[in-house]
Every structure is written in structure tokens, then in C-alpha cells.
């Protein structure tokens, strides 16, 4: 009895304090380490370090990322691929773009090529801290996250013992890998007439079709605000903004069009741009090309041939925006490091 009293009176409190102080100390020691846990971290770092004057910035979710990661979009060094995925959502696109612009880049065009889901679905709460809150911690980013994501807490103020993974584990792992300063460029050129893969054994899950058809396609408040802020950036930095909705399976596209949901979403997006006084182009990849192969979620394009087709389509869009202008880099000029493409590729494949 007496020994349990001792346990609760001083042994346990002492252990709690010692552990917290120990973790706090280690966390403090690692606080300067740039996190490199995933491609959003890597991008957040490289947008501020790559000095190349890209003419076009490509933003988007994993549909575009899967393509741009494998295939070069556009001409050599024409496009800065800042695509992420739905877990990082549109906020990551806004923050990456802002960081990119603030580091001295002056692109002529910014293209958001993404599925409609990132505009209409709330961001996944389970991955929000991992991909957004702990990656983007600048004042502008914190202000936006605090305003639009209830429950957002700046993790840097949490006791280290409560966030051992983020303050100790992940910085330690980040020390082991450094993906380089360059923004990733897809290593291969897409074929203009690719062999379109067939997957005869694929079965379409009707539940997924039903779910896609039933989902509401209205802009979330945060998506609305992000588009507004991007328009504001476009005025400030002098680039043109373009939105391309990623392809959908033809049957889903036709049903959603018939239901009037696609037009309604287009109108909502246009209204935002009109309110912001911005001249923005809005395209739907499914309007010009038909895509027949998708992953089981009916969101991601499946098959290398089909991905090349989308890569070529994106490049065509980008060339269609060509107004003779070019990108600039007004920041501190540094020689572009000569990093082995193979080394970058291996690192980047691991971070997928």
C-alpha cells in the first residue's frame, strides 16, 4: 500500500516529467531539421530552392501527380510540377504556389489539373496533420488553416512527449534522406500515340459507381476561398490561372452531366472567378478525350498508355495557353545542382 503511494506520489510524476523533458530536449535539437516524410514535404522544400525559371506551374491531385511523376509534361524545363494528392488537398496547392512565388519565381501560367473531388469533398481529417498541418507552418498558412479547419492546432506548441513521432521520429528519419533541391520532373516523354492498356479481368464495383454518381458536387467553403486567394496571387504576380478537371469514366461523366451536376459545379467555379475579377480558363479533360481505364476507385487513371494519353492532353492544353511569354526567376540565382536523375528517381519512387 505504502509503496503504491510512493509510486503515485513521486515515481510516476517523476517519470512523466523526465520523459517529457528528455523528448523536449531531443525535439529541440531536431527542430531545425526540414521534414522529408513524403512528397508534399519534399515539394515544400524544393519550391523554395529550385531556381529554374519555369514558365508554367502545374498544381493538382494524385491523378495528375501519377502522370506528371512518370512523364514530362510540356517541353524541357517548361513545367514546374507541384502536384500533390487529395490528402494534402487544395490547401497544399495554394501554399506551395505561394511559397514558390515568394521565392522569386514569376511563371506565366498556373494550371490546376485535378479531380472534382478536391474542390467538393472535405479534406481527410485522419491525414490532415501528416500532410498539411505539420508541413505548412508559415504565418499565412497557419492563419488559413486556423480559419477553415476547426480543431487545427499548431503542432509546434504541443509538448514534445505528445508528438514524439512528429518532433523526434520523423525528423530523425528525415535526416536519412534528402531528395535534393530540384522540383521533380517526369523522366520519360509520353508517346503521342500510346498503346492503350486493356485489363479484361477488371470488374467494376457497382457500389463505387453508385457512390460517385450520388455524391454532391458543390464547392466547399475552403475551396472557394483558395480559388479566391489564387486569383489574388494571379493579380499580384501577373500569371494566368487555368483549371482542368481530370477525366472521369464515360458512364459516370454522362450521368453526372445528365443530372446537371457538372454544369452546376462549373458555374460555381466561374462565379468565384468572376467575383474575384480574374480571367480564368476552365476545361474538362473528358470533353475532348475519352478515358476507359480507371483504378478500382474510378478516380485514378489505370495503365501506362492511358496515363501517357493524359500527359499529352495536359501538354496540349499548356501549349494552347502559349502567348509567347516565358517564366522568370527574380530571386537569388544559384547554379542548378547536378543531381543524378537516377538517384532522384529512386528517392522519389520511395516517397510515393
Amino acid at each position: 500500500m505504502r509503496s503504491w503511494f510512493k509510486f503515485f506520489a513521486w515515481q510516476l510524476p517523476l517519470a512523466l516529467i523526465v520523459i517529457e523533458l528528455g523528448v523536449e530536449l531531443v525535439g529541440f535539437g531536431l527542430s531545425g531539421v526540414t521534414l522529408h516524410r513524403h512528397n508534399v514535404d519534399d515539394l515544400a522544400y524544393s519550391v523554395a530552392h529550385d531556381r529554374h525559371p519555369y514558365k508554367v506551374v502545374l498544381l493538382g491531385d494524385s491523378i495528375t501527380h501519377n502522370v506528371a511523376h512518370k512523364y514530362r509534361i510540356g517541353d524541357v524545363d517548361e513545367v514546374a510540377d507541384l502536384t500533390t494528392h487529395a490528402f494534402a488537398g487544395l490547401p497544399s496547392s495554394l501554399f506551395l504556389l505561394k511559397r514558390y512565388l515568394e521565392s522569386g519565381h514569376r511563371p506565366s501560367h498556373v494550371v490546376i489539373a485535378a479531380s472534382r473531388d478536391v474542390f467538393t469533398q472535405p479534406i481527410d481529417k485522419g491525414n490532415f496533420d501528416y500532410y498539411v498541418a505539420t508541413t505548412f507552418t508559415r504565418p499565412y498558412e497557419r492563419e488559413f488553416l486556423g480559419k477553415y479547419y476547426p480543431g487545427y492546432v499548431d503542432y509546434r506548441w504541443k509538448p514534445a512527449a505528445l508528438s514524439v513521432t512528429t518532433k523526434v521520429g520523423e525528423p530523425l528519419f528525415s535526416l536519412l534522406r534528402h531528395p535534393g533541391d530540384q522540383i521533380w520532373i517526369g523522366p520519360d516523354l509520353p508517346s503521342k500515340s500510346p498503346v492503350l492498356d486493356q485489363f479484361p479481368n477488371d470488374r467494376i464495383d457497382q457500389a463505387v459507381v453508385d457512390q460517385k454518381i450520388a455524391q454532391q458536387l458543390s464547392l466547399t467553403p475552403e475551396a472557394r476561398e483558395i480559388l479566391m486567394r489564387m486569383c489574388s496571387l494571379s493579380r499580384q504576380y501577373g500569371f494566368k490561372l487555368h483549371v482542368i478537371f481530370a477525366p472521369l469514366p464515360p458512364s459516370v461523366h454522362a450521368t453526372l452531366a445528365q443530372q446537371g451536376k457538372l454544369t452546376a459545379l462549373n458555374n460555381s467555379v466561374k462565379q468565384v472567378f468572376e467575383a474575384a475579377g480574374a480571367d480564368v480558363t476552365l476545361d474538362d479533360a473528358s470533353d475532348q478525350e475519352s478515358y476507359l481505364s480507371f483504378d478500382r476507385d474510378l478516380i485514378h487513371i489505370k495503365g501506362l498508355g492511358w496515363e501517357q494519353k493524359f500527359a499529352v492532353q495536359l501538354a496540349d492544353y499548356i501549349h494552347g495557353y502559349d502567348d509567347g511569354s516565358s517564366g522568370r526567376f527574380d530571386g537569388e540565382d544559384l547554379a542548378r545542382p547536378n543531381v543524378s536523375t537516377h538517384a532522384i528517381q529512386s528517392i522519389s519512387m520511395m516517397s510515393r
Partner: protein
Amino acid sequence: MLFTDPVFLFAFLPASLVLYLLARRTFGGRAAILVLLACSIFFYGYWSVKYLSLLLGQILVNYLFARKLTRSQSRALLWTAIAVNLALLGYFKYRNFFLENVGLLTGWQLHLSLLFVPLGISFHTFQQITFLTDVADGEEDVPPLPQFMLFVIFFPQLIAGPIVLHREMGRQLTEVVAGKESTAGTFGPGFALFCFGLFKKVCLADNIAPFVDTAFQWPLHLQFIEAWAAAIGYALQLFFDFSGYSDMAVGLGLMFGFLLPFNFNVPFAATSMTEYWKRWHITMTRFFTMYCYTPLALAAHRVVDERGYSRIRAFALCIAVPTMITFLASGLWHGAGWTFIVFGLVNGLGLLINHAWREAKMPHLPRVLAWALTMVTILVTLVYFRSDSLAQAHSILRSMFMPEHILLPLWADALAAKIGVSVGFFEVFQAANFTAHFMLLIVLFAPLAVLLPNPAMKPKKTSPSLPLAFAVAGMIWLTLGLLGQPRTFLYFQF
């Protein structure tokens, strides 16, 4: 209110502990029982006031049955009481399943309203049936109503067990009333055990859950490696989830001065199906053994003795039939669905093979082989347990046991070239970091599940020390850091 809910951890639990101890010290054991009863009623009512009244009504009816049974000990009355309880359970849990299948067989179009299953109904209904049976057998006396109510509704074990027998709890409650029992020696071990259970749930089970969910979400697309990883991952998730809950329940019981039975004894170390079921969900196995298997087997033995059946017929009647019936009931107890029925039947079949092997005096298998066979059988049963439909389960099992080809994901092409395996497109393991993370969790958690003894087995032997303080403090920090989004306990649905 979940045990991982901050409202429970930082408000309800401390408040109920303080109230209980104050009542006990100031007004005596009887008042303490009433306070604990009130806290338990609040705990259940916090989830649903409507179903609280159902639970209280069920308790009152069973109390009246028990009072009557002490006087008459009539079997007919006992069967009536059991039937009333099973009817209640059947209505809420099995009505839709039964009617759906009637509709399928007859072609009738039935429009069934969605029925909400009252939390923990399987657990507290069984607990009350054990009490009624023990009273009818003259093995238990009927306690005063508050004590009986607390026996059923005591919040640490109310919603997901352990299934407590009255003989285990009744004496302890009587001692509290008499002012004999105290929490002085049990609070510390209870607190340590509760922290351990919380850690298992929040840091282990909930960490692997998203990976398992992703894999089970796409059964048609799983390749060989993915299907095995999904099955193993789910086995680990279920074990840490349910054993974590059970440790918390035993820990909470001890914090209030009550010793509840433990539910797990390193089940994944079992080298036979019989041993596995002696180690997994022990109080449920005990219930089915005492109240289903044993009566059936005894009745069969009497028939066999009277008629002098051959050895094979005797085995079929005394072992095979009771085993299969028991596991069929056990499968159904877990849920109203064909997947649960097949889960029970595959388990029963595993046990039968186990018994037949022993009866035929076949040679002992090497320990490692016996363990591997047992684990493979368990994984098969758990695929059924986790799947939403038989088709989903069969699709995963096909990928596990009859893959069209064995491939590695595209990103592992360098490894594939070295070991001579082809690469292919993986839809679930297409991201290297997802797979690496999932595999890391399996590699870290599997040894813990197989080797770590369960401290809930001898909780009172836990002695305070500085290393224990550091272990508990470490678990507290890690758990608090991950408490943000607690997932529900898997066994709450049963």
C-alpha cells in the same frame, strides 16, 4: 462514451472514482454500491437513454425470474426466462437477418426498417442467462436488487465483457456492502493495467487499422502478398483492440476494488485450435462450454453409454455434434450474417480435426508446424469475421491460397529481379511508403502478439517500482499523443 474518449478519461472516470471512494468512506459500502450503480447507469444512458430503459427493464424482469426460481427451481420457468432473454436478443440482433433470408427463399419483398442493436446486448444478456441458470441449479442465491443490477451493469464490463459469472462478482459486492473489501491494494495495479490496455488500443490497434481497412476495401483487387498482409494485419488489429479493451476493463475493475476475469492468454502462441480457444476470449468460451457444449456432450454420452455405439459414432455424437452446434451458436452470437456463421463453422471444423487427430492417436506434429497450421486456420476464420460478405471473404481467400500468379509490386522491381519473381501492377500496395509502413507495423506487432504475456492474468502481482513508473509514463505520453481520433472498439458491435 468509449474508454478512449477524453470525456471518459478526464471527467467520467475521475468523477466516478472520487464519488465512489467518498461514498464508501463516508456512508459505507451500501451507499458506495448505489453510487457505482448510478455511475454505470449514467455511462450507459450517455450513449442512449431509450436503450437504457430497455436494459433496466430486462434486468428487472430477470430479477423477478430469479426470485421465482429460488423458490420453485422449475426447469420450465428457467427455459421461459432464457427464452425471453434470447427473444429480446433475437429481435434486436437477428430479426432483419432472419427476415432477409426468408425473403430470399420465398421471394417475398420485405421492406425492413433499420434496427439499432443496443450496445453490449450480447454480453449482458449472456451474463444474465448464466445467473438465472446458476440460481435454478441452486448454485447462487439472489442478491438484493442493487447488487444484482450492479453485477449486470457495472460499467467496465457492461458493453464488451468480460462475461462475468455471478459467483465471481457476487461475493465481492457482498464484501463491499459489509465494508470488507477495499481498493487500497488494487488501485495501483488496476491503473497500470488500464494504461497498458489503452496503449494497446490507441497505439497498436488503431495504428494498423487504416491499412487493414484499405486492404479489405478492395477485395477483388488484392494480390497474393496483399491478401496475406490484410489477413495478418486484421488478426493483429482485432487482438490488440479486443485484448486492449479487456485489459482496460479488468484494470478499471481493480481501480474500484473488483477483480474481473481476464479474457486473453497469448492466443497467437497456441499450437492447436483447442488451445487457441482456451486462450482467446476466454470468458465467452467458458460460457459456451458451460452452458452449451457440456450439456450437449453429457446428454450425448448418456445416449452412447445406453446404446453402446461404436467409437466413430460415439465421437460423432459426443464431440462432433456438440462442437459444431456450439461454434455455430458462437458464430451467430458474434453477428447476424453468413460470414459469422461460416466463421463459427470453420472454427468448429478446425477443432474437430484437432480432436479427431488426438482420438486417432496420430503422432504429434513438430511444434512450429502445429503453430503454423493453427495460425493459418485462425487467419482463414478471421477473413470471414472481417468480411462484409461471403463473396468478399472468398475473393480474399482465393488470393491467399489460389493466386493466379505471385508478383511483387512494380516499385520492388530490383528485389524481384534478385529473387526471380515477376512484377505487376498492385492497386493496394502501389505506393511504396504505404507498404513499407504496413509491413513495418506487422513485423513490430506480431512478436508482441505472440510473445507478450498478459499482465491481466495476475494483476495483483504487479508491484510498484521506478521501471514500472517509466513504462506507464511512456505509455501515457504515447497514448495521449494519439488520442485525437479514437476509433470505436471492434467488439462493441457484438
